[in-house]
């Protein structure tokens, strides 16, 4: 491959570049991203960097120029011409490619009218993180709009800073639509035990305040005082620059199981922006998980360097989240319609594993404070172990855990 152009230089793009070099690709690699001069990782932005326990530099993903001999263009890409095999930058400059890798990720949804108030934040970039940190230092109260993982982490980090926090979720309970009611209730309890107020079932009607936000007004007529608001209502894949290019878009770049964009030649996509066909799941999926972005990057790097040995990407969906000092981990495709069996390890620190299954077929697990259980479930998913056996294994390890600590 003579010239690979990677658009998007966060974890997915960077791992593609390093993966290509690890596969001994010695062709030219160009990385295009307005932030490519100093790429960084996002998970710490709602955790360590927001909390102030990490300096921003600690979230660095490395230096693509010196580490992987990539040419770096710190510019936005505005379009692609798939027939001519070239992209256009914001400056109008055009750049040819032999293979194009799309790793432009996703951008937060915003509330209509939110831009008119100071103190209203989304959280995706380092700048967002440092701005939010400044707002939180004013002392609060903080209202988090939306009960997703990132909002939950912000709530947890803000509580640790001593800020009063309310989470306002329009639906039943935070994450109920993805994780089901039982697990959503566990997560809500975790928040409440740590002093976060959780308000469910009322959407946001408007923001109140003159200049800076002063309150969030809900559908049910209530008014939540706020000095800072974080809007965490999901993200949209960054595909605007691909519109009209012939690349098929449908909630992301539509890819085959090899992470190659359909309908066009020599274009790949990965990470939050890609909706690829997962053979095991039997459908197209788009995941917003760090680990999936890195694994897809490995797949794309492999497929670019091994034209005669194409590898399909099957996800082992994995997500982690740190909330209120507890590690929450999700493995597999959790379906709110599945049955859930809960295993608890009592004594000392409470550990919980929620096992998702359809009949005896193991689907997924969410663990709270129990990484060891996650490893067990991960192996069980891989080996297609029946759910009841996986539950038994956990109960056994639970007894072993108790006796060893006794």
């Amino acid at each position, binding site marked *: 491959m003579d010239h690979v152009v990677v658009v998007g230089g966060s974890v997915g793009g960077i791992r593609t570049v390093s993966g290509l070099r690890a596969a001994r690709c010695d062709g030219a690699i160009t990385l295009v991203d307005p932030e490519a001069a100093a790429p960084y990782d996002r998970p710490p932005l709602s955790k360590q960097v927001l909390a102030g326990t990490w300096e921003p530099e600690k979230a660095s993903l490395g230096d693509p120029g010196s580490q992987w001999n990539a040419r770096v263009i710190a510019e936005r890409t505005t379009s692609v011409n798939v027939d001519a095999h070239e992209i256009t930058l914001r400056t109008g400059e055009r750049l040819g490619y032999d293979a194009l890798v799309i790793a432009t990720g996703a951008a937060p949804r915003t509330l209509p009218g939110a831009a008119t108030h100071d103190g209203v934040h989304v959280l995706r970039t380092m700048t967002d993180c440092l701005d939010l940190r400044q707002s939180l230092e004013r002392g609060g109260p903080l209202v988090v709009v939306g009960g997703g993982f990132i909002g939950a982490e912000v709530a947890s980090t803000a509580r640790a800073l001593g800020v009063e926090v309310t989470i306002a979720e329009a639906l039943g309970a935070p994450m109920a639509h993805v994780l089901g009611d039982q697990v959503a209730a566990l997560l809500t309890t975790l928040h409440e035990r740590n002093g976060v107020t959780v308000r469910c079932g009322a959407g946001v009607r408007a923001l109140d305040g003159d200049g800076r936000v002063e309150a969030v007004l809900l559908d049910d007529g209530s008014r939540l005082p706020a000095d800072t608001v974080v809007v965490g209502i999901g993200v949209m894949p960054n595909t605007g620059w691909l519109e009209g290019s012939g690349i098929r878009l449908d909630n992301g770049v539509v890819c085959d199981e090899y992470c190659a964009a359909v309908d066009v030649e020599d274009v790949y996509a990965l990470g939050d922006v890609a909706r690829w066909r997962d053979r095991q799941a039997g459908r197209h999926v788009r995941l917003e998980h760090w*680990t999936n972005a890195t694994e897809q990057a490995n797949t794309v790097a492999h497929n670019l360097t091994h034209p005669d040995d194409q590898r399909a990407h099957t996800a082992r969906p994995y997500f982690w989240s740190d909330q209120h000092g507890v590690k929450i981990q999700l493995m597999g495709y959790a379906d709110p319609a599945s049955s859930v069996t809960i295993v608890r390890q009592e004594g000392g620190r409470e550990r919980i594993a929620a096992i998702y299954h359809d009949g005896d077929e193991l689907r997924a697990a969410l663990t709270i404070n*129990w990484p060891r259980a*996650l490893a067990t479930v991960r*192996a069980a998913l891989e080996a297609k172990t029946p759910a009841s056996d996986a539950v038994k294994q956990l109960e056994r390890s639970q007894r072993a855990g108790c006796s060893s600590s006794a």
Partner: protein
Amino acid sequence: MIKIRKDIETCEGYANCVVAASDVYDLDDDGKVVILRPTVDESERDKVDEAVRSCPTAAIWLEDD
């Protein structure tokens, strides 16, 4: 022989390494990586290499003896 190395400060307990090589890596109760065998044979390089690459935080690595 290949030496198996870890930095438990960096380990976040993702368990990717355990899946890649469950006879070499395990997790303790706090979710930190445990090395079951401090050295492995050259014939196992591919497997432990995969474990190292699959660790999201680069908390494990190999050293040649």
